[in-house]
């Protein structure tokens, strides 16, 4: 395996690791807090919101936006690390 290919497969592995973590957060914020565990979370309150309801109609969306920007940052760093940036 050439140097370049080794680089490429190490890059890909790290990329997959990031994706797994980010998609886990994606799942927990929407399907977890907003759907599966909303009854439990509704016992808590955030101002006038029941917490589970807040996650379903507000919180999950904020998490999504943050996730995508974190992804952009992580990937830009990763590109630099392996010399794939341009």
């Amino acid at each position, binding site marked *: 395996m050439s140097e370049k290919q080794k680089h*490429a497969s190490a*890059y*890909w592995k790290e*990329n997959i690791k990031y*994706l797994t973590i*980010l*998609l886990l957060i*994606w799942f927990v914020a*929407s*399907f977890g807090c*907003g*759907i*599966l565990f909303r009854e439990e979370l*509704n016992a808590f309150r*955030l*101002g*006038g*919101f*029941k917490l589970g*309801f*807040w996650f*379903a*109609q*507000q919180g*999950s*969306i*904020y998490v*999504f*936006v943050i*996730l*995508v*920007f974190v*992804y*952009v940052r992580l*990937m*830009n760093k990763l*590109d630099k690390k392996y*010399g*794939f*940036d*341009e």
Partner: protein
Amino acid sequence: MSVQTWTWILVGLTFALYFGIAIWARAGSTKEFYVAGGGVSPLANGMATAADWMSAASFISMAGLISFMGYDGSVYLMGWTGGYVLLALLLAPYLRKFGKFTVPDFIGDRYYSNTARTVAVICALIVSFTYVAGQMRGVGIVFSQFLQVDINIGVIIGMTVVLIFAFLGGMKGITYTQVAQYCVLIFAFMVPAIFISIQMTDSVIPQIGMGSKVDGGAFLLDKLDSLHTELGFKEYTSGSKSTWDVFAITLALMAGTAGLPHVIVRFFTVPKVKDARKSAGLALLFIAILYTTAPAIAVFSRTNLIETVSNQEYTEIPEWFKNWENTGLIAWADKNNDGKIQYVAGEALNGKKPIYTNERGASGERLISNANSETNELYVDRDIMVLANPEIAKLPNWVIALVAAGGLAAALSTAAGLLLVISTSISHDLIKKQLKPDISEKGELMAARIAIFVAILIAGIFGIYPPGFVAAVVALAFGLAAASFFPAIVLGIFDKRMNKEGAVSGMIVGIVLMLFYMIYFKTGLIGVMDPRPASEWWFGTSPEGFGTFAMIVNVVVSMVVSRMTPAPPMDVQEIVESIRIPSGAGEASSH
């Protein structure tokens, strides 16, 4: 000034702006026509993507739907924004690196098969046409309501406008027009929301106002919950769908939206993979502004609606109520003859829409012939909530007119993007790639323009004569995209071993299963069978949520079949290797 005058002024000004941009950004080559020359900045691309993504449905219908569905409406909020995360993380950067114009291009090359390409073209056309028909209808509704013209004339005006700037500018013109349209639509959406938030709560920001206290000292959401309980509705913050069904619908919407061809094509217009990622992030930010405001509007308008109409004398009711009654989107039947509007849980009518007789009742209301015997006396069309909201809250006339201009911007931008995908599918994927490979660039550009023209005519006809099954087919479009495109693209990137046999059999099984379920439980077959009742749904999954099920089956079939058949050829495996690496993306090309 009257609402009419304001509407003419604002709609006129925004349209002049769109035309100016279309003329300024005329397309000269196929590359400019398909992908705006590949030189659009991430910020502009982010705004254009957001305008593309947010259709008349997002702008006009979504807040209204949520206001009637309460918690259940969350499926749209999470589904349509969460799908964007999938798009940004799993698809956009890789498809940009792949560097062809269209989704069928990717499917065709990755699975080294013209059959796969053809299946993808057909899916893209079905999805796009379904959408565009809805947009045209939306344009018609807005024009007819605010400019007081017939709905069909509204559709024709909309067709002409889209035609002019799509025809001239192609992707380049559309992209820069969409940037302007995003600004108009988000301004138009936010202004009334902020006004009403200040009016009802003491917060300027609607997202916070929704969870604040109202004048009486109670929290707004608690007040709405108790209003709901009093009138026999389910609590607003609880909803009535089962947890599993909410889960399935949300996932199907997410995967379905991530697979929409008109949004994916957007990422071919930026210069580098890095820009594709960044513009996906910006686009989601721009989308989130509208999507977090919509549930606030839903709560405000729901509370306002109940407080304004419940147990009020019809003769005392505000003007907006009678205006919408005249357009056929509100109906009231005085079942107990007390002259007051009883608005409680339950359907007021037999059938979906009110059927008006041409007479007026004792209080001056339009009589309807299909009232049922339940206690509820009021029918309100869900689509009017956003349009009527400023009137219900007694906002100034220019705000009401602004909403009209915003609704038009939303509908037109999405329609233009979709029409471009349709014309590209025909001129590039079908003519250039399959029927006549030696066509000149000029010839291809001409074919693309003719295809747009024909597509607009067909879309307009759909808008004027909406087929009765439009609503069912729209839901089907998401399910189909989830069950077909989405797994094929994701597996094509993340599973190097995935081959032609696996992907094609997975797509076919997914689509067929989805079609079967939709026909069996939702549309029925005319003259053969009626749709089966909800009590027979498999595992309690609604047809809207079944895309999740079909998608899982697609993935399983693809995996199993691909492992039993030969690995894809070396050059295809090299394509996969190369799209995983961001550098050297070059420009999107047709060859």
